[in-house]
């Protein structure tokens, strides 16, 4: 796996807050994250989580939405009033609405319970990478050897030859690349590309993403770059 090769990048030790009321979940997350070289702080309640976050120096939080004292969603919206620390929420599988709501309330990504630890670590890595990039730095260039997206020059090339994209197609691709490895919800994309009055028009998005995939030669049934998270949004699959 290429992650091992990039170990120097990914293994930057971070302080990670784990919030879950189940001791078993806390324990296995604690062990796994420490095995990746991170420092782990744990909390078993919403209040404990907010206290730990207020104390500062947390680089990333993993937040269970079902907490005994308060709704995880409430924690999220309170936190977002004073902090932009990246948050991954843990959700139940059945509720796509809850996932979208959490992402719109400021969560940066989600993992569905029960989850594999590899999946979680991939999300953690993607978020920490994005965090390491200063917000005012020049827009990055995405290049995996086949697809190259230059966000500063607004250029897209596929295997060396330029790809002509419509304005909206480019806007979609740019939004995805900027969030590489992370999910973007349908309402977020609709807001960003069509404006706030079109947040419900998911049909637009389906047509547009089909056109973009077609121009990139990507296959929705076996996505190489643009993966659909049904009912939630889209995710640009960054190489591991």
């Amino acid at each position: 796996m290429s992650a091992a090769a990039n170990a120097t990048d990914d293994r930057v030790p971070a302080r990670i807050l784990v919030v879950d009321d189940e001791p078993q979940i806390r324990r296995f997350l604690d062990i796994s994250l420490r095995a990746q070289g991170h420092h782990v702080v744990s909390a078993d309640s919403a209040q404990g989580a907010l206290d730990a976050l207020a104390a500062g120096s947390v680089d990333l939080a993993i937040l269970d939405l079902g907490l005994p004292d308060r709704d995880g969603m409430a924690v999220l919206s309170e936190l977002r009033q004073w902090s932009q620390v990246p948050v991954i929420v843990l959700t139940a599988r059945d509720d796509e609405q809850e996932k979208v709501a959490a992402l719109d309330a400021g969560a940066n990504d989600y993992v569905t319970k029960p989850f594999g630890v590899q999946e979680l670590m991939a999300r953690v890595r993607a978020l920490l990478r994005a965090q390491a990039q200063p917000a005012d730095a020049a827009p990055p260039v995405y290049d995996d050897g086949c697809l190259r997206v230059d966000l500063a020059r607004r250029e897209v090339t596929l295997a060396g030859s330029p790809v002509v994209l419509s304005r909206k197609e480019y806007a979609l691709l740019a939004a995805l690349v900027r969030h590489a490895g992370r999910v973007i919800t349908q309402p977020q994309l609709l807001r960003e590309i069509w404006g706030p009055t079109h947040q419900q028009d998911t049909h637009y998005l389906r047509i547009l993403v089909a056109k973009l995939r077609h121009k990139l030669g990507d296959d929705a049934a076996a996505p190489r770059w643009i993966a659909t998270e049904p009912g939630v949004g889209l995710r640009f699959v960054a190489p591991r």
Partner: protein
Amino acid sequence: MPDAAAMPMPATSGPLGYVLAVAGSALAVLVAALTERWLGLDDLSLVFMLAVLVVAARTHTGPAVLTAVLCFLAYNFFFIEPRYTFYISARHGVATVALFLAAALLAGRLASRLAMQVQALRAAGRHAAARQELARRLTVAASEEEVLQAAQEMMRDSLRAEAWIQVAGSGLEGQAGAVPPEAVLRQVAEGRRAETVEEHGWWFLPLHAPDRLLGVVGLKLPSGAGGLDAAERQLARTMVDDIAQALQRTRLVAALQSERVAAETERLRSALLSSVSHDLRTPLAGVIGAAEALESYGADMEAGDRRSLLATIREEGQRLDGYIQNLLDMTRLGQGGMALRRDWIGADELLGATITRLQRHRPDARFQVVVEPGLGPLRVNPALLGQALYNVLDNAAKFSPTGALVEVRVHRAGPDAAVQPDLCIDVRDRGPGIPAAERGRVFDAFYSMSRGDRGRDGTGLGLAICRGVIEAHGGTIAALPADGGGTCMRITLPMPAPGPDAESGGAS
């Protein structure tokens, strides 16, 4: 009598008949005066005879006799010498007017009787048609509500009476425009009005079953026109009998149905219980056993054995998770009123996400997806349909020989694919196939269990959920034999009307 049958006017009754008699006589005098020049005295009597016949045919005996007498007098007074007296000079003149009167009276009576017979026949025909129509509508009525509705409409149409119907024990009350007075209602409710009674312009008829009283029909009699005649009352009684029979039939059918549902529910519940105890415990036994083995003897094990036990824990845990997901989905489907939160998603996207999820559980499964170009997105509940596809693909992978490709083809189909195509998803495996006799039954809940052959880790729920989800989306699923062996699961879903254009708002 084609003339009489064609007469559009119903028999005139009451004072109107006598008005008609006077008017007819006056008209006859006028016509006779105008035509006297060309007609002989004897022929003039025919003009008056005609007037008597016409009036008689349209009224009844009284006006007919009146017309005959008036015409006799007018004929005498205006036309027989000496005129403008009732005196008759010629001897034969007396005979003429006497015979005229006799003939007019007789003809008048015959004509009016004939008219009444025609009228009665027509009413009988109408009533028979009304009964037939009622019987037809009662036959197709599937519920008590529909029976009552048909009854009310037919009674209003054929008897001009608003019907109020109360059925004991069901709380159903036919909604009529009118409701009987409170005092009468109370008597009806207390059972003191089981017999036909009439009061306050309402006529009550009991709805009898052989062994008990089913309810009461109250007819608000049409005001003014003299209520219902004997024939109409007879019609009302037979209609009420028909309604009582129909009510009994619907009750019987409903009772049988609920018995059948109860038996089915019981069967499902016992199957569910044994399935839960088996399917939840088997993976748990694996997890607990493997974990304990690692805890107690892990230090002495070879690395390969330790990895194998760890893999067991993970795989069995995932299997348990899948089973719980199926149970949850089935509960949601079983609750019936499952609100489908629909969203747009391409069939290819949904397949891609589902295959990604499936390959975490089955890293060895291989899929080949071919999608017909130009297909628009579907409007479905992505999570539920995703789970249905997951179950179908999981099944296909499970029964495929190791390393064999599962082929998925997405295309347009349907009887009139050119006009209104369905979306068709074919999932084809290279497994052993399903015997023809069992293809329809694989979608029954706990089918694999009742067959005694549980497959490799079948729970008997997966395909039942597929069918539930797909039918909730208005689609179908069927197991077909595939060319060259194996099974082809064919899912069809209605294609939504094309949505608005994505690029509207000025792109490109």
